């Protein structure tokens, strides 16, 4: 058995890059969120390193990995400087409790080391053909040649092969640790955001019960356990989706006179980039956080700084990687995502970046409201009607896709047992409790985010290919991405029920950033 040390070194590289990139935002994010976000943030250095090597035709060695990290840090710091100029004190330790910061880093580093060490010794893994024919060997090839090839852009997306390439550069033979590490990150993030978000006015015992139940439910759910060690795109996609969405919800709920909380917008944008680059269809699901962001950015007067905070990190990472691809490959043609549709989607993303102002103008001119919280509701409604129309037009393939999905999710073939019955029933009950669309609540955004996810899933998978029956079906695996969001949503509903003070939250002033910082030593 080969040593786990190279893998641990690769993970340490990602965490350190994440720490450095998020450094100026650590006070606004709070200790738990800052340290938890370090790994998934740092992982974005991998596709940037690959973009660098593809452009300069050099192998993805340690120098290239370092350059990828520097690119990420420079981009995030530049956005932070533009979006949070008044947070200049956060660039240094000035004013901070240096001892407390050091203690936080020590505890976080220790936690990372213990978890990664245990996983590195256990070395459980699950692979399918995609894992050992694509995700890992493409990374090996990328590490050697430095070029993101056509198969990466057309079939597998850029993040996972480049993540594998960094592992190979550090001397690893297989990725045993990074996938379960991301799963643990997701669990900690759920507890952190629930604790300091929907549960903030609850008693400590209620906080422990609700956040513990959410984490426990996911940790005991076999699909979660499976994807935690499955060398594939699903756990990473699920993590980026939840982290991006929940960051946007927190940004909205901690808005001040300068607009939504810029630090949370920046990390939301970075995580949205991760979602887009993890799978080729990630560019489609990317519009779940993008639409949520447009709603958040139009809650009050649209500010350039806020738009830059979300869209700049997202677009920098995505555009840098795709620019390298177009420069090296031209307009590639292949099976899942060819160059032309990818270019169109990138164009739509650029339009999305100016859409907050468009929505704001429409809101002024139309007789009904379209901005702020209304935006997601309207978008989901319109796109659901569009989905129905597409299903009617392409009924033959849609009928087969719906039948396969029904058999997979509700009749046991997809391995979910009762999970999707529970999702449907709990969501239906939440409609009766009023949480699904409750204005100015933690639950509305989550509910509409889940709804938009399924509309996009219907458009992507309901018509293009009908899928197949069994656990290996693409849609059957992709629906897992939204399971943590559903768990977060249900937990937020329970938090509202169990926290009497929360019922009057609409009338409360938004919590300050300090209130959203659970003390690491608590």
């Amino acid at each position, binding site marked *: *058995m*080969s040593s786990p040390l190279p893998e641990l070194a690769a993970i340490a590289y990602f965490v350190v890059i994440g720490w450095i990139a998020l450094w100026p935002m650590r006070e606004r994010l709070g200790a738990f969120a800052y340290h938890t976000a370090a790994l998934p943030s740092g992982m974005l250095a991998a596709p940037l390193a690959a973009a660098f090597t593809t452009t300069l035709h050099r192998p993805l060695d340690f120098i290239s990995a370092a350059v990828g990290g520097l690119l990420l840090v420079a981009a995030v710091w530049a956005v932070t400087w533009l979006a949070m100029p008044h947070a200049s004190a956060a660039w240094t330790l000035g004013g901070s409790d240096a001892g407390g910061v050091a203690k936080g880093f020590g505890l976080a580093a220790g936690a990372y080391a213990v978890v990664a060490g245990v996983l590195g010794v*256990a*070395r*459980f*893994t*699950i*692979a*399918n*053909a995609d*894992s*050992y*024919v694509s995700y*890992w*060997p493409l990374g*090996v*090839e990328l590490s050697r040649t430095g070029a993101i090839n056509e*198969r990466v852009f057309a079939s597998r997306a850029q993040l996972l092969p480049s993540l594998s390439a960094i592992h*190979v550069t550090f*001397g690893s*033979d*297989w990725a045993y640790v990074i996938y379960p590490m991301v799963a643990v990150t997701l669990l900690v993030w759920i507890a952190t955001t629930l604790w300091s978000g929907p549960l903030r006015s609850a*008693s*400590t*015992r*209620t906080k422990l019960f609700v956040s513990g*139940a959410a984490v*426990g*439910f996911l940790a*005991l*759910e*076999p*699909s979660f356990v*499976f994807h935690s*060690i499955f060398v594939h795109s699903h756990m990473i996609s699920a993590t980026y989706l939840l982290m991006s969405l929940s960051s946007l919800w927190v940004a909205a709920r901690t808005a001040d006179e300068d607009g939504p909380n810029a630090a949370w917008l920046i990390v939301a944008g970075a995580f949205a980039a991760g979602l887009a680059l993890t799978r080729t269809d990630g560019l489609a699901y990317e519009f779940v956080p993008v639409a949520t962001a447009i709603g958040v950015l139009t809650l009050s007067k649209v500010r350039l700084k806020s738009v830059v905070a979300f869209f700049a990190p997202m677009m920098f990472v995505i555009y840098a990687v795709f620019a390298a691809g177009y420069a090296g490959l031209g307009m590639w*043609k*292949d*099976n899942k995502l060819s160059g032309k549709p990818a270019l169109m989607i990138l164009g739509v993303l650029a339009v999305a970046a100016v859409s907050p102002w468009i929505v704001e103008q429409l809101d002024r001119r139309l007789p009904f409201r379209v901005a702020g919280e209304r935006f997601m509701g309207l978008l989901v409604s319109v796109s659901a009607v569009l989905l129905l129309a597409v299903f009617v037009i392409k009924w033959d393939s849609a009928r087969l896709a719906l039948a396969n999905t029904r058999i997979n999710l509700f009749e*046991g073939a*997809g*391995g*979910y*047992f*009762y999970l999707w019955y*529970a999702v449907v*029933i*709990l969501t239906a*009950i*939440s409609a*009766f*409790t*009023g949480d699904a669309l409750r204005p100015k609540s933690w639950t509305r955004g989550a509910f509409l985010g889940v709804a938009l996810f399924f509309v996009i899933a219907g458009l992507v998978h309901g018509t293009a290919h009908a899928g197949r029956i069994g*656990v290996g079906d693409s849609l059957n695996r992709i629906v897992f991405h939204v399971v943590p969001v559903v768990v977060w949503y*249900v937990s937020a*509903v*329970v938090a509202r*029920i*169990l926290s*009497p003070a929360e019922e009057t939250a609409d009338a409360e002033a938004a919590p300050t950033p300090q209130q959203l910082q659970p003390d690491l030593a*608590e």
Partner: protein
Amino acid sequence: MSDGPREGLLLVRNAQTLRSKPLADKIMLIAVVLCLAIALVRVGLVVVTVPYAMYKNSVAVPAAGGASSKSVGSRVAHSWTWLTWWGGRPNPHRDGGNYLGVMSRHITSRNLGCVIGVLLEKDNAKGYGITRVIVPSDMTALYGEESGNLMKRADGTEFRTYWAPISRDAAIFSDVPVKTRKYDPVLTAAQSAALRTTAGLKEQSKEFWVAKPRVGGSGQWILYASVTGEKRDYFFIPLELSPAGGAK
């Protein structure tokens, strides 16, 4: 973390508030608790029954003259609680230790024909097919640098496997002489028949080219097949640990 009397007061207040909650809220809480209970019961059943299934397959069955199951996955494969909970997904494993080890779990020469056959049957109409096989003449290019499994050659010398290179063409072997060989079947007739039955193939493909290294060791065969099509490539590096007799 908890602050004693205040915490108690809060709980009492919460309980009182709960009684005054609307019916929908109460139903929501009951449904959530029910879901948590189902999750716990399912895991509980697995925790209680799977160790016995593993014991049975690793100790009791061999003691009675049956075949022992070596991997964790095969030991739990007949436990209905595990199968119900895990939902028919591939079982986790921890043996192997590297890429080739992981590959060996999935692709051996016993299922090479199955995998390639399925792909070719599926995509033949689109013009896909295996065009050639690349075999490095120099074995070190295949096994190369030290990492992974310790293996023994026929002459008794040991080597460690290295990630076997994958490429669409011979370019990656630019510093190594390469040669191609025609299909050299390693499947027995019985194995081929079993594969056809298992995979439900109408006809196993005879078109793919597979090569074997000049020197095999300790019964290992490294087969390297490059599958290329008009628009799509498939790559396989099958590793069979004990081809003789078929059973691994």
